[in-house]
């Protein structure tokens, strides 16, 4: 049994933290605390989400203010990285290594012996469903597989804090679901997971606690449902790339939750607008399997409109 104070003590603490790149302010005077559990970092592209995470991961020094991770300054404290897993947005691996070699090498850097490296590698690959592709070179991995191997390296050393930058981008619906379940489970286990996304419904599937970032500032924080209420008037847009896009379009157009369906001129992508995303995502699984959906993303125009609304307030 833990005390309430210990259970909610901030794992990550920003105190008037700013970061600028030359004349560009990426994060502006941010003061916030992140408690254990899953926290969604929500904001449009270029809002400062990645900078927020890089500061937390100790990969960037704050230009001003302080960022503390597990009670110590995140910058210049590599000893704390034993307890942190970072899944960066951009690719960060050696393409000529196999998935297994990649994880084993990184685990060695974390100080595990050979036997434990093997065991942890196998477990992490299993978690992200890459065991079958473990002996293939990363250079030949698809976008979704690359995302999953990045996630595997972040969780392989069993860290307390996980910083995941757009972890489900480029994944097919099935793996997206798996990763969302994994994040939720890690949060339930008591780990601190900060997961960034520009898709509200993606974050909502993982957690109810969100930080809204816009133009380098924390615009709002709290329960995701409040933000969702603001979104009701704006249809949610989902773009899907499928092997049989016409079949997919024909299937989804009949759903009551869908208000419009559009095929791109190249005939690869189907863009769907829905007013009830939960219902849409719930029904999508079977249709996605039948039509062979290989990639899915959600443009952030609708989220942008919420930010405009919040800024105007």
């Amino acid at each position, binding site marked *: 049994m833990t005390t309430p104070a210990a259970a909610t003590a901030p794992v990550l603490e920003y105190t008037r933290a700013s970061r600028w790149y030359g004349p560009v302010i990426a994060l502006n005077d941010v003061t916030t605390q992140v408690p254990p559990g899953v926290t969604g970092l929500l904001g449009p592209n270029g809002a400062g989400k990645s900078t927020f995470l890089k500061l937390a991961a100790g990969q960037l020094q704050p230009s001003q203010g302080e960022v503390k991770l597990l009670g110590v300054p995140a910058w210049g404290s590599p000893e704390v*990285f034993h307890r942190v897993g970072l899944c960066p947005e951009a690719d960060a691996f050696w393409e000529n290594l196999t998935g297994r070699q990649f994880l084993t090498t990184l685990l060695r*850097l974390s100080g595990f012996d050979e036997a434990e490296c093997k065991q942890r590698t196998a477990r992490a690959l299993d978690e992200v469903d890459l065991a079958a592709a473990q002996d293939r070179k990363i250079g030949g991995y698809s976008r979704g597989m690359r995302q999953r191997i990045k996630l595997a390296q972040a969780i392989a050393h069993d860290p307390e804090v996980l910083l995941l930058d757009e972890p489900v981008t480029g994944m097919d619906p099935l793996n997206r679901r798996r990763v969302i379940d994994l994040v939720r489970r890690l949060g339930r286990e008591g780990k601190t997971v900060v997961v960034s996304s520009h898709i509200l419904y993606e974050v909502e599937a993982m957690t109810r606690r969100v930080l809204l970032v816009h133009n380098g500032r924390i615009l709002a924080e709290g329960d995701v449902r409040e933000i969702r209420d603001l979104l009701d008037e704006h249809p949610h847009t989902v773009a899907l790339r499928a092997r049989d896009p016409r079949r997919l379009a024909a299937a989804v157009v009949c759903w009551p939750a869908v208000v419009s369906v559009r095929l791109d001129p190249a005939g690869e992508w189907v863009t769907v607008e829905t007013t009830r995303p939960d219902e849409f995502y719930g029904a999508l699984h079977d249709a996605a399997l039948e039509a062979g959906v290989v990639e899915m993303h959600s443009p952030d125009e609708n989220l942008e409109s919420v930010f405009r609304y919040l800024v105007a307030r």
Partner: protein
Amino acid sequence: MPIYDQGYRRYEARGPLRKARFWPITREALRLVLSKRAFLGLLLAGFIPFVVRVAQIYIVTQYPQADRVLPIDGRLFGEFLNQQIGFTILLVIFGASGLVANDLRTGAILAYLSRPLTRRDYVIGKLLVPLFLCLSVTLAPGLLLYATGLSLAPDFYGKWELAWIGPAIVVHACAISLVVSLLTLAISALSRSARVAGLALFGLMVGLEMVRVILQHGFRQKPAMLLSIQTNLRAVGTALFGIADREVVMAWGWSALVLALLSLGCLYVLRSRVRAVEIVT
């Protein structure tokens, strides 16, 4: 009383930073480099001069009069090490020019620096790779040659007056290896392409030597000697082993100063370029 989830209990992998944490970086890089057969062939070719020098010592021990044309005193070791500079350049161009460049290109540097490692650990881990390659064709055969000399001609090399040869081999081999390794890593950190870094390294090591030859011989410019990294390294060798080298036309102290400044410059480049996140302003 509210009951909270027991929560996650951290597995205590390692607490504080462990010692020699740079070693996995070196090990992995060396494994990759040495897994290429062509590279192993090049490494072995670096031992051909060693075999020739062993033959030289053997011939002189069998025919002492040959000493007049093939001296086997300290100069032999200095000339041998100076000769090996060429091999160190080839080895680092083919085996180490992509060490940092590839990490910068693929973003893998972030994978390293998000682990319990400092930037210094990363640099040391990478630096040990060219250092190992260079020492394997300078220090290792140099000391082996000395040991062979001692066994073939114990009366000659066992003399107290020649006891300086061993330490001089260590100093010169380490100087060559350190300068070449630092330069390799710095050039690698300035590029995102192993090929570009390799070409730049070739240009610096071979191109500057050609410029020196043109300026020194064509225009009688003595200070041009300081332009060439190879000649500066040779100048240190000539001083250590008492060799007469007509290309070395300035005091060795100048060369040592140039090499020291070059090394400091390389460290500065590494300090500013080795970052997990590239900042473009």
